[in-house]
């Protein structure tokens, strides 16, 4: 089932030295039920691509379809509820709200879409329990380790059961062991037959968790490795 389909996506940004082409016509797919990793060196356009897929960055040419909805044709006011309902985000810097405890942070997408706080907290608490944070739901972000914060971010990304999960360097701020643990949990909870998961990373140690690995360089998609081949891509 096609989750995300990008066709000839291109974007350029004005600079003092003239327009800078960041994406030069990318064809990319992230099927539902799979974890697709988007890998490549810094500045190759990975984050730009997922920003376009999420509707956070506009002005791109080409086509971006998320479960049949053409994202590039959605207006600004249509994109907001679209993101809230369909997309879960995991950021490199977690971006948890400092004043909210773990359960409240995880509950934010539900509350934002109108779920009453008690129901949202119950659901978030259950998910945090699955992520091994059952004893930490009342703790503030500053009271949690980096790995624990990222697990709260995973809970926040999945609590509203989005169809698309976008992860930007989820292990970049973690040590190797914590990174592996986070990716293991992410793999276990995020991969779902009706959900597509895209993980942007340049950490080869986590390639083994992918179903597909898409290699980008200089604004272009060079190759896609699938299945066991993808797991071996870490050797590159």
């Amino acid at each position, binding site marked *: 089932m096609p989750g995300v389909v990008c066709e000839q996506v291109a974007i350029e940004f004005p600079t003092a030295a003239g327009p800078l082409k960041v994406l030069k016509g990318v064809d990319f797919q992230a099927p539902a039920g799979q974890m697709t990793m988007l890998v490549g060196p810094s500045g190759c356009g990975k984050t730009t691509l997922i920003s376009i897929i999420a509707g956070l960055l506009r002005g791109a040419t080409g086509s971006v379809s998320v479960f049949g909805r053409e994202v590039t044709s959605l207006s600004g006011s249509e994109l907001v509820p679209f993101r809230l309902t369909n997309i879960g985000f995991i950021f*490199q810097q977690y971006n948890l709200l400092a004043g909210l405890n773990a359960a409240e942070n995880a509950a934010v997408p539900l509350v934002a879409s109108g779920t009453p706080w008690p129901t949202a907290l119950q659901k978030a608490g259950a998910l945090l329990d699955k992520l091994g944070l059952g004893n930490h739901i009342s703790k503030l972000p500053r009271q949690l380790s980096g790995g624990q914060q990222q697990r709260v971010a995973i809970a926040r990304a999945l609590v509203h059961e989005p169809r698309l999960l976008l992860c930007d360097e989820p292990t970049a701020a973690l040590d190797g062991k914590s990174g592996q643990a986070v990716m293991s949990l992410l793999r276990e909870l995020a991969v779902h037959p009706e959900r597509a998961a895209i993980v942007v990373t340049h950490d080869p140690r986590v390639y083994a968790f992918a179903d597909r690995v898409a290699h980008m360089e200089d604004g272009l998609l060079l190759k896609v490795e699938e299945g066991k081949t993808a797991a071996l891509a870490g050797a590159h």
Partner: protein
Amino acid sequence: MIRVAFKILLHDTAKYLALVMGIAFATLLISQQSAIFHSVMESSTRDIIEANEADIWVMKPSVETVDQPDQMAELTVNRVRSTPGVEWAVPYYQAIAQLRTSDGRTKSVTLIGVDDSSLVAAPHKVLLGSLDDLRRPDAIILDAAGFAAIFPDVPPRTGDIVEIGQRRAEIVGISHTGPSWTGLPRVHTRRSLAVEYARETLNPVTYVLARAAPGRSPDEVAKEIAKATGLQAHSRAGFKAKSQEWVLNFSGVAENFGITILMGVVIGVAIVGQTFYMFSVENLRQFAALKAIGVSNRRILGMISTQALFVSCVGYCLGIGVASLFFALFSPQLTGGLRGMFMDPAIFIGTGIFIVLVTLLSCVISVRRVLTVDPAVVFRS
């Protein structure tokens, strides 16, 4: 999301307190200075405020303010009484006189001569003695602050004999009145005695106090009096406004207080605006994360407005509370410069509206940053 807004606001206690204290300080500065200015303006029309039985004041055309009266013949009272629409009219005399104590000390006083028979315009609050004692020979009532100024270190009492205009006067009562513009002790007596104390020979009056007949507007009746007598006549409110306008134009008080209040406003705007702006900007990344997740600009606007309203209300309550405490502690005193000073309800309301508006304005300015922040910023480390 209101709960999230409160959590973001209250999480950083230091920033929250800085916001609240900034708003409280601005509130205190603005409300206190405005109240003192308002009280000073009220003191400039103390005689008009005290003589509240009369709703019309009649005077010579040359009079510009209540403290600078001009003399008229006593017969003027009858001319006012005969004007249609006047219920009653009484003479009123006011002058500056010299008071001499038994040990030879002198002091200038404001001499107020009230109608001998009705005692209209006599002090309302007599602390020692009684108003009827004013009918006794040589009787005067002195205000408490004036007594303290004339007899330092002596507790208020009656029975002292003094001289005014080289004539015997007995203090038969001590009154409590608010501060006057001149700051001089206020001596109330019967008009017939007052003109003797002032060593007048023609038995003059300085004002005629009148009351409009039931159902008649004081302004209308004042116009009729002016037309019939050729004198200047105003309603009580009109004369108060005219006197205050003169003070504003010629005393410099408006400039002095205006600058202080303006400083309060500027400091208030700077503190409130900058603190709230910094608060919002420092939380920019958190708001960007919310926007990326799918929280609409409208909801973020609601969150920030709620934060602004909450801190402005808390800060306002704190600031107005301290200002009120200041006046509650100092204004009821019988002597001293702050006696009778008060905070008008309009200042409570006006300061509140101003503080909320300033906070919302700074909220609008900071919201612009938040609403235009690129949500993709959350993808940057």
